[in-house]
């Protein structure tokens, strides 16, 4: 399967990356080169093979059901959470208006 300019524009939109017309033109052959190369996987017989979900078998754990069991990942750290925000406002993350 190969991609054209319209498909690449659609992928960029899904990925939320703004691209110029010139970027799009350059990306089409690059992505097609990579996609043509990975398509060799289609020749592998995978009948009856399960897709890998965990490379090393491990069980999913639940943390203790305790508030702020780990202070690093617990709550009540608003200032630390906002410390790197580009536009914090009134103790929240500031964003452009989303509702007209």
């Amino acid at each position, binding site marked *: 399967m190969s991609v054209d300019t319209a498909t690449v524009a659609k992928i960029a939109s899904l990925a939320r*990356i703004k691209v110029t017309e010139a970027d799009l033109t350059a990306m089409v052959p690059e992505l097609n080169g990579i996609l043509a190369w990975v398509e060799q996987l289609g020749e592998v017989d995978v009948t009856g093979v399960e897709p890998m979900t965990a490379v090393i078998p491990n069980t999913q754990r639940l943390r203790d059901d305790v508030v702020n069991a780990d202070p690093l*990942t617990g709550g009540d750290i608003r200032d630390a959470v906002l410390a790197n925000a580009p536009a914090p406002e009134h103790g929240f993350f500031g964003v452009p208006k989303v509702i007209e």
Partner: protein
Amino acid sequence: MTQLTDLGIAAIRDGVAKGDFTATEVATAFNAAVAAAQPALNAFIVTTPEKALEAAAKVDADRAAGKALGTMAGVPIGMKDLFATHGTQTTAASKILEGFKPQYESTVSQKLWDAGAGMLGKLNLDQFAMGSSNETSAFGNVISPWRRPNDTAPLAPGGSSGGSSSAVAARIAPAATGTDTGGSIRQPAAFTGISGIKPTYGRCSRWGVVAFASSLDQAGPMARDVTDCAIMLEAMAGFDPKDSTSLNLSVPEWTAGLNADMKGKKVGIPREYRLDGMDADVAKSWDDGIAWLKDAGAEIVEISLPHTKYALPTYYIIAPAEASSNLARYDGVRYGLRDLPDGAGLQDMYAATRAAGFGPEVKRRIMIGTYVLSAGFYDAYYTQAQKVRTLIARDFTEAFQQVDVILVPTAPSSAFALGEKSADPLEMYLNDVFSVPASLAGLPAMSVPAGLDRNGLPLGLQVIGKAFDEQGVLNASLALEQRAQFSARPAKWW
């Protein structure tokens, strides 16, 4: 007297403990070496001489007070700039994180500080660890301290842990952290004549490590020799409840268990790694490695890993897919760069921020990942790749019923010059051909220097082991190290 900057982890730690020199003297010497090399090598994104001195002062005070010292006490190290460090800028070498100062410390770096190590600075890398030459960093290329004879062309230190490899090889850091998603510890170690081990997936916590491909990312040490790697890996590894894929196993005493006697051990040589047109020097170093392990008492067994040729294309579906998902978090809202064009709405802000903040290789991988996960293509690409990944892992499981470890080259060539491969993404990807299979299977794998090629540049040999058997990997690597007698180092030109 030997210069302090010529010493590795064990020698520094033991010298500090004995009182041959102080930790402060060591930190001062390395800080000076870092400052002198930085303009030429660009191995660091930020340097933190004050942090190195602060940690050293604590070690010296503890020693004076008769307190027990940690296993890395007095050793100043470089920290790859993918590990979150509290209050010190952490960028993953991307403009999108420029100025980001984490409010927390990664588990792995915290463990190293707890063991008595200090921080020389944050090491440069390929942007978001995506690259094999350190040419995708937003903070400039890292230059290898190695050069071809009578040639000043700058060479790649490998990637993505290129700042780590350059710094350790140049003797401006005795050791450094690395991370390995498809070979990012092993390939740069091979390019620069140092050692590095990627442990079993889950040994080192990923908490606080900027995510690239979560099912593959593993941290590990890069140092001058196998013993130093064992010491540092012991300090880095261990169960962490904050990482859901962390292995709930105690950390073995790898250093105490080091043993280069390979009697009774079987070493597998996979025929699929013997590629057509393989570099003659790489092929010879592999043969040397086979002879060295035989000399150490091992039995050599030819094995087959039939799906090897599919490992790279599998990796270049799975890793971008996971990356496209992981990097969705960079949206200009919570941290990092925000690009808000005049009159832009929220969606425009996301797209403008990501366009301005991500480098070309990162965008390329996000686009590939988005495509292979998109409706209509998911099964053909992503599910198929995950099935082939099962087959690649199964190849290793079957091989390890016959052998204890596997010996292969680390990379298909020695270091190339900057710019030599950066024009074609596919050509760059092929650099990981020998390192990616072990990553896809989550196995421990180590690169050790094997010798120099015809250009006087280092070549690495790679030992791949069974899951959880870092000891077997370290031991075989030690047997290689003792016989390779690798003592070459780059001539100081910086």
